[in-house]
């Protein structure tokens, strides 16, 4: 299966829309050949490129060289160095122009890509966890993106993909990068974040002669981008992933001739697994290669492109025709801003705050994002609440993604711990109920 990971396209075909001029497939292969010798000999390549074209070149060069590519969970220095703990000599790459051309530019075709990609996610003990992916695994996941695009009536080569998810993240890697190099969509060089970024990206794509755009995004971005999408008729299809999408939001985007909104279900471990059109479907349809099986500890997924059976983070109801209904998340996993983390790990991180006698983070399921509340027992040394809030936030910020910093802090006399030190779900719920019964906490006169 490794032979078919990358498309073979005419050298003159448009590959990427970029500010300083378009890049063709010929440019891509020439740049990969030029960069390969410069990367060779390094233990691993930490690919921090923020521009998608540069990222794709470094990625393909390392894959072709048979090297490991390391993708940290964020570009923050702490996250990068933690991801490189086992490979401190990895070469960090960012901009293509900073890499000197190899003299003996390799001209080996890219049919075979023996390298691996290690996608790191924030782990349950604080250390990031690597997820090993091969080129053909990522190509298979990107097939779902490609099928959705076809379902929306769009032709891959005449359609550009714009994404709000960084390409170092599994979904961004699959949809924006492998959707391009393996499935033939046209790449957009920049990551889109603000509505004006989206407007600029679509204008650049149309100026390059591509008239159809698919937007790969996540629920929090979609909420903010909705208005811009309505004013950009070139956006013909929206794909949302990484967190459950509010169906009202999907309907709003689709209303009055807006583009169809498809939702992808998956995880870093499985890649894209299933899809639905959220405004009209409750039921999920898996990619044809997947099969779902019940196990003693919950459901798991199998597919030929995955190395083993992979447990799902959710409970499902499997229907006779192989489609399924999502019932809810399992265990202590929390999801905010499209990122997952273990609540237990977050509390473990909290216990490391110096000068905090005791504390507990409790999660509430919200529509879309979960909501975190931090309960603290204040020390008797006169530390005020604002100081404590800063202390906790700055400690957690070194260990977890900032989206997992609790928004609400409430001082309590004690944390209701049982004999083993654990707080039962019932006691945690009681803490939350008391907190909301008292109304939002306001600091009065302690400052």
């Amino acid at each position, binding site marked *: 299966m490794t032979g078919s990971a990358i498309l073979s396209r005419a050298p003159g075909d448009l590959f990427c829309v970029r500010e300083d001029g378009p890049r063709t497939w010929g440019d891509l292969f020439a740049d990969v050949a030029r960069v390969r010798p410069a990367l060779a000999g390094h233990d691993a390549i930490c690919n921090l490129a923020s521009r998608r074209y540069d990222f794709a070149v470094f990625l393909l060069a390392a894959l072709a060289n048979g090297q490991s590519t390391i993708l940290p969970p*964020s*570009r*923050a*220095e*702490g996250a990068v160095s933690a991801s490189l703990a086992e490979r401190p000599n990895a070469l960090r790459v960012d901009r293509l122009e900073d890499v000197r051309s190899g003299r003996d530019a390799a001209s080996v075709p890219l049919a075979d890509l023996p390298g691996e990609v290690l996608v790191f996610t924030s782990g349950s003990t604080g250390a990031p966890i690597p997820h090993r992916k091969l080129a053909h695994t990522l190509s298979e996941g990107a097939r779902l993106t490609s099928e959705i695009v076809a379902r929306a009536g769009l032709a891959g080569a005449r359609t550009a993909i714009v994404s709000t998810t*960084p390409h170092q993240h599994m979904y961004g890697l699959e949809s924006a990068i492998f959707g391009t190099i393996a499935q033939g969509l046209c790449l957009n060089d*920049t*990551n*889109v*974040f*603000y*509505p*004006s*970024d989206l407007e*600029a990206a679509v204008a650049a794509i149309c100026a390059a002669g591509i008239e159809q755009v698919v937007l790969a995004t996540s629920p*929090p*971005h979609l909420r*903010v981008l909705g208005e811009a999408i309505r004013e950009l008729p070139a956006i013909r299809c929206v794909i949302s992933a990484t967190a459950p999408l509010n169906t009202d939001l999907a309907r709003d985007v689709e209303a009055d001739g807006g583009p169809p909104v498809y939702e992808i279900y998956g995880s870093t471990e499985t890649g894209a697994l299933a899809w639905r059109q959220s405004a009209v479907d409750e039921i999920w349809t898996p990619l044809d290669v997947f099969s779902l099986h019940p196990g003693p500890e919950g459901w798991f997924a199998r597919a030929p492109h995955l190395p083993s059976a992979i447990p799902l983070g959710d409970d499902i109801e499997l229907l006779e025709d192989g489609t399924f209904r999502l019932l809810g998340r399992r265990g202590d996993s929390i999801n905010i*801003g499209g990122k997952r983390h273990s609540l237990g790990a977050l509390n473990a991180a909290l216990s490391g705050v110096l000068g905090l006698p005791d504390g507990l983070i409790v999660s509430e399921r919200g529509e879309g994002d979960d909501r975190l509340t931090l309960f603290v027992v204040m020390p008797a040394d006169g530390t005020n*609440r*604002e100081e404590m*809030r800063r202390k906790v*936030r*700055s400690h957690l*910020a*070194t260990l977890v993604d*900032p*989206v997992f*910093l609790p*928004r*609400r*802090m*409430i001082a309590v006399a004690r944390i209701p711990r049982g004999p083993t030190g654990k707080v039962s779900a019932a006691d945690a719920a009681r803490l939350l109920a008391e907190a909301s019964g008292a109304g*939002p*906490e*306001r*600091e009065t006169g302690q*400052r």
Partner: protein
Amino acid sequence: MDDMADGGALENFRQEIAEMIVEVLVLEDVTADEIEPDAPLFGDGLGLDSIDALEISFAISKRYGVKLRSDDERNSEIFSSLTALSRHIQENRTK
């Protein structure tokens, strides 16, 4: 930094922006006057790929017509503190 003659006006506007941040981010346990004017707005190293920045940008484009873009090199300066953000909005507002 304090070269603005009309410091009082900026201070009032800063208060308005602080209230907007508290409202937009649903900071239930922070009041607007608890946000220190010159302290970093986003904890330690919270970068622009944060949903908070997105929510704030959405609100300031709605209320003041100031649109932010990722490729703006001033972004880290704009978000460096409440004062800097308020100043940027005041200088670029169209509403």
